[in-house]
C-alpha cells in the first residue's frame, strides 16, 4: 500500500510495505460491497469467508475477523503477504473491474498482525482424540497446513523436518523484506500450540526409514520442490555460481548478511547476474542489492512474460535491478571465479501451450554480461530422495508424486500436497492442496473406526 522508499529499503532487510494501521484498515474494509455471491471467496484456494472477516474489520472487531480467517487458514499473516491476490481474491473482486479491488491481502495481513501483537487469541477448539497417528514430511506451507487441519480433527500429528528450523521455503527461501521470519515463527508456533509435534533435523527416509514412516495410520508427503535446476552450460561449477536456493538459504536461514557475527559466509559480489524471471529470481536479485551489489536479471523472454508477480518485478526495478530480457546464458567465464556471462539474444516467435512466446536463439548475437557472481533461479523440481525410497509410489515425469483429486497417492494411506505433487507453485496453492488432502485423510481415518 505505502511502500518504503527504495533508497531506504536497499540498505536493510525490513519489510517493503509497513502495512495498514487500524484506521486505514477500517476505511479499506468499508469499501467492500458485501456481495451476496462473493466471487473473492471462489478465488481463494483455501475458501476464507472474505466478506465475513471484512465486515468485522469495518466494525473494528479485529479479533473476530481473525477468528473467521483462522477457521480456514492457520497462516494468515504469511498469506496476507505472499499470496498472489491479484490473480485470486482481489482479481475476482467486482471492484477490480472498476479499477481498484478491495485490498483483501493487506486486510488479512493487518488482522493477523494485530492479533499477534495486541491480543492473545484463543486457540481453535480441538476435536476429541482419535488415537490415529499421522506422519507429515516437511514443515513448509503444505506440511504445516495439513498438520494443523489434522490435529484439529483429533489426530496425533508428527512433522519430520530435515532443517534446523520449521517453515520450509517460508524460512529458507522467501527473504525477510517480503516475509519477516518473526511472522513465520509466530504462525508456526500457533500450529505447534495445537499439539503438533515437530522433529527437526530429521530427514525422512534417513533419520526415519520409509518403513517406519509407512507404519503410521496415514502419511502426508510435503517435501516441496527443493532440487535446484542448473542450466548445464560451461562454467556453471565455477566459484561464484550459486543456485538461488543456496544464495537465499545462506542469507535467509543462515544469516550470512550478518557474517562474521553469524558464522555462515556468502560471496557478495560487486556485479551480480541472476538468471530467471520468477519470484525466486526477484528475491535473489533484491537480496544481492541489499548486500551492496549491482544486480542484473537475465531472462529469455520479455518483462511482461516473467512468471514473477508484477509487484515483485516492480519492486526489483525500483530497487535498481537492471533487466536484460530476451537473452539466455550460454557460457560462464572465469578461471577460478566468475568474470562474465556470455548470452545469446532470443527471438520470440509463436506461442507455447502456456500462451507465452517461444524464445529462439539468434545465431551470432552473442554478448557478454560483466559479473563476478551468477545466481541461477530457473526453477526447482521435487527432491527425489524419499519418493524413490518408497516402493510402489508412482511418480510423474518431472519427479512429482502423482495424486488424485483428494491428494491420495498410489499407496492408499499415503497422501501428498504442495510442490511435491504440483511442481513448483505458490505458498497458497500448496496450502489449498494440503487442506484437500487433510479432509480426505480425516475421512479415511474416521471410516476405519
Amino acid at each position, binding site marked *: 500500500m505505502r511502500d518504503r522508499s527504495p533508497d531506504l529499503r536497499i540498505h536493510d532487510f525490513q519489510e517493503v510495505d509497513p502495512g495498514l494501521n487500524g484506521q486505514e484498515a477500517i476505511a479499506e474494509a468499508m469499501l467492500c460491497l458485501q456481495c451476496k455471491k462473493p466471487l473473492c471467496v471462489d478465488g481463494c484456494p483455501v475458501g476464507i469467508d472474505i466478506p465475513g472477516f471484512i465486515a468485522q474489520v469495518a466494525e473494528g472487531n479485529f479479533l473476530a475477523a481473525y477468528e473467521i480467517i483462522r477457521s480456514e487458514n492457520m497462516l494468515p499473516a504469511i498469506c496476507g503477504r505472499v499470496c498472489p491476490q491479484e490473480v485470486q481474491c482481489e482479481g475476482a473482486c467486482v471492484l477490480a473491474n472498476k479499477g481498484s479491488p478491495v485490498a483483501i491481502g493487506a486486510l488479512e495481513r493487518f488482522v493477523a498482525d494485530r492479533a499477534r501483537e495486541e491480543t492473545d487469541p484463543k486457540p481453535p477448539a480441538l476435536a476429541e482424540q482419535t488415537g490415529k497417528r499421522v506422519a507429515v514430511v516437511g514443515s513448509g506451507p503444505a506440511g504445516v497446513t495439513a498438520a494443523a487441519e489434522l490435529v484439529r480433527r483429533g489426530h496425533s500429528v508428527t512433522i519430520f523436518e530435515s532443517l534446523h528450523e520449521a517453515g520450509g521455503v517460508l524460512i529458507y527461501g522467501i527473504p525477510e523484506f517480503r516475509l519477516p521470519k518473526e511472522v513465520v515463527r509466530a504462525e508456526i508456533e500457533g500450529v505447534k500450540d495445537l499439539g503438533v509435534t515437530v522433529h*527437526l*533435523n530429521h530427514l525422512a527416509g534417513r*533419520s526415519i526409514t520409509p518403513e517406519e514412516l509407512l507404519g503410521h495410520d496415514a502419511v502426508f508427503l510435503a517435501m516441496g520442490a527443493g532440487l535446484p535446476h542448473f542450466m548445464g552450460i560451461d562454467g*556453471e561449477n565455477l*566459484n561464484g555460481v550459486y543456485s538461488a536456493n543456496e544464495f537465499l538459504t545462506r542469507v535467509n536461514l543462515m544469516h550470512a548478511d550478518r557474517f*562474521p557475527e553469524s*558464522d555462515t559466509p556468502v560471496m557478495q559480489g560487486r556485479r551480480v547476474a541472476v538468471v530467471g524471471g520468477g519470484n525466486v529470481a526477484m528475491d535473489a536479485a533484491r537480496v544481492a542489492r541489499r548486500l551492496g551489489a549491482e544486480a542484473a536479471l537475465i531472462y529469455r523472454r520479455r518483462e511482461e512474460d516473467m512468471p514473477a508477480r508484477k509487484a515483485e518485478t516492480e519492486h526489483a526495478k525500483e530497487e535498481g535491478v537492471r533487466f536484460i530480457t530476451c537473452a539466455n546464458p550460454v557460457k560462464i567465464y572465469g578461471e*577460478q571465479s566468475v568474470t562474465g556471462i556470455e548470452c545469446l539474444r532470443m527471438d520470440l516467435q509463436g506461442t507455447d501451450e502456456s500462451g507465452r512466446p517461444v524464445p529462439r536463439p539468434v545465431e551470432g548475437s552473442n554478448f557478454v554480461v560483466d559479473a563476478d557472481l551468477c545466481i541461477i533461479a530457473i526453477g526447482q523440481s521435487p527432491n527425489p530422495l524419499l519418493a524413490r525410497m518408497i516402493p510402489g509410489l508412482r511418480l510423474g515425469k518431472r519427479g512429482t508424486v502423482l495424486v488424485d483429486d483428494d491428494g491420495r497417492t498410489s499407496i492408499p494411506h499415503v497422501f501428498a500436497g504442495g510442490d511435491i505433487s504440483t511442481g513448483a507453485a505458490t505458498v497458497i496453492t500448496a496450502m489449498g492442496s494440503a487442506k484437500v488432502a487433510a479432509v480426505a485423510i480425516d475421512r479415511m481415518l474416521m471410516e476405519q473406526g
Partner: protein
Amino acid sequence: MYRIKEKKELADGIYECWIEAPHISRHARAGQFLVLRIDDSGERIPLTISGVDGDDVRVIYMAVGKTTHYLASLGEGDLIRDVAGPLGTPATIRDYGTCVVIGGGVGIACTPIIAKELREAGNRVIGIIGARNAGLLICEDEMRDVCDELFVCTDDGSSGYHGFPAGLLKRELEALSIDAVWIIGPAIMMKITSEVTRPYGVKTFVSLNPIMVDGTGMCGSCRVTVGGETKFACVDGPEFDAHQVDFDELMRRQRIYLDQEKEALALYQNHECRCMGDRKHA
C-alpha cells in the same frame, strides 16, 4: 539439543566426540555423514559418521576453522544445538574379494567403519593408514582390530613405512590381486592415490568432502563433476568412483570461502583470549 557424551583429543589438534543422537545412530551406515550446528549463530558443517554405539554417534575432526575449534572447546555434557542425519548414500558394501581401505590424515577416522562392514560382508580387508608424522596417526588400534592386515606410513618415517599411502598401495597392487579400493583423506591425497589404481583397472572409491549447507540436496553447494556430469555429493555421494572425479574442481570449490574462514577464525581466537577466566578457556 544434543548432548556430548564423551570427548577426547586423539592426536595433536584431532578430536573424537560422541554425541547422543538416536535418530542418527539407529540408522547410520558406513560412508554416511551428519550435519551439525553448534549454536544459533553457528554454521552447518558436515562430518563423517565414524562410529555408532547405542544412541550415540562418533565424529572425529581436526580443529582447523572456527566451528571445529569451537567444537573442540566443548566437553562432556555440553550441548550441540542441531545434529541432522544420517545423510548421504551409504558406502557400496558387498563381497568384492580382497579390498584395500586407505585413510590419510584425519580421513583415517572414516576407515574403521567401512573396513568393518566390508569384512562382515565377507571381504579380506587390508588397511593402510598414513599421516604426516607418528603424532598425527589416529585409530591405529581400531583399524588393526577390523582389518586382516594393517600397514602404517608416515610422511617423515616416524612410524611405519616412510612415505605416502600411494607407495604402500602400489606395493600391494603388485603383490596381490585387489578387487576394490577405498581412499579417504584430503582431496589432493585422494587424487594422487587414486591414480595408482587406474592402470590396474581396480574399482576405486573416494569419499568427497565439498562445502555443504543443508546436506539434503536442496542447495547445490556441494556439486562435483563425476564422469563429466554434475552430481550433488550430499545425496548422490559422498562416495564416488575415484577415476571419474574432477578433483581439481573439488579443490577449487573447497577454497571459495578461504578469506572468510580466516576472518572468522581470527575473530573467534581473539574473542577466546579475551574470555580467559571463562570456564571453558581458563
